[in-house]
């Protein structure tokens, strides 16, 4: 009964919890970003093998944020989680020039999935606190983002470590999601 009323109210008030996936290669900073968004703290993390899922509240909007492991052997499971996803936060290690091509390939095959056709894409060019980080425009070029025609997307420079850029990125995401819903 409680479930019925709360779902009725959320329909009336439109505070539907939105589903966000954080994806990207291993070591990009996905888990650090998740907890930075949730509690505003930098936490020591270990490579994610299962998944993390937390409720993040931003500007009175509630998100259920899923952080999936990015190691080669677990990437094939990403697609199992695509159903009903409102937005994807794609995290890229801006210093990892060697694997930028792999990151692009994973991004492209993800965006081809039917289930993600309507999902908003937020790319985070992460680790901008490092001296050898590529600029967002270089990351954007390496990922081939300009070729995205029908998708609502944007790229932001971030540092999960210092917190730089995360607010701007989330602000954009909230607006992009509200524009759609």
């Amino acid at each position, binding site marked *: 009964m409680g479930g019925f009323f709360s779902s009725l109210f959320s329909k009336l008030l439109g505070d539907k919890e939105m*589903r966000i996936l954080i994806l990207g290669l291993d070591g990009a900073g996905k888990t650090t970003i998740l*907890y930075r968004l*949730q*509690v*505003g*703290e*930098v*936490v*020591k*993390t*270990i490579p994610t*093998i*299962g*998944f*993390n*899922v*937390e409720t993040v509240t931003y500007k009175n909007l509630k998100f259920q944020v899923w952080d999936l492991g990015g190691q080669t052997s*677990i990437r094939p*499971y990403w697609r*199992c*989680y695509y*159903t*009903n996803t409102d937005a994807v936060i794609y995290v890229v290690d801006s210093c990892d020039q060697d694997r930028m091509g792999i990151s692009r390939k994973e991004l492209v095959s993800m965006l081809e999935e039917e289930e993600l056709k309507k999902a908003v894409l937020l790319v985070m060019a992460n680790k901008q606190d490092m001296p050898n980080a590529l600029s967002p425009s270089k990351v954007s070029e390496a990922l081939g983002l300009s070729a995205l025609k029908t998708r609502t997307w944007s790229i932001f420079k971030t540092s999960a470590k210092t*917190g730089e850029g995360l607010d701007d990125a989330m602000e954009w995401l909230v607006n992009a999601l509200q524009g759609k819903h």
Partner: protein
Amino acid sequence: ATKLLQSGPLARGLFLARALQKILAEKDTKRSQNTPLREACEAALEQVSEKLKASGQSADENVDADTPMPPPGDDLVMVAADKYFTPFRLACECKSAKVTRTALDCLQKMMAYGHINSHMMAEVEGFPDAMRLVDLVVETICKCFVGEATDESVQLQIIKALLTAVTSNVCDIHEGTLLRAVRTCYNIYLTSRSAVNQTTAKATLTQMINVIFRRMEDVSDDIRA
């Protein structure tokens, strides 16, 4: 305010303290039928606080801030987490979804970060020999699923914790415990009324079974070589 958490036994103690405080702060924990849970939390919290005080830290510092993660564990400075398992077991058995959810989330993080691992033993009342703590932990997690009426957020935490228990390299679960973990996920997949939980349980099962078979093949390759 941002702060970098320290690693090592201190931060581990803080993680435990925050988790226990969070359970204690729940309204349901204060009910009279949950007295054993409350007492177990308080006793464990006292022990953790003493350890922290001895090293010049206070468990009450930043009570509001959730410490979301324990620091990565290493075998040498392992806090005897099994001593602190009882409050989490009672919290899992508690009829409050909020309390159970918090306990499951903590148990998953402790397994993922190696604070509950295959080397730890637990004394169980009614059993003459100590059993492995991980077996007891997985059993406790599985018992939280009581059929389709199980709270949906509890179901999700069960799936998350079981995936970690099966795929982690430090838990090393076998036989009955492994089968139980797989079966519980399958039951959630079959009976859950939540589409998200069904999808997640399905993905989790796929990943679990693949990991199990890969390990089997690795072992048989070793034997053949």
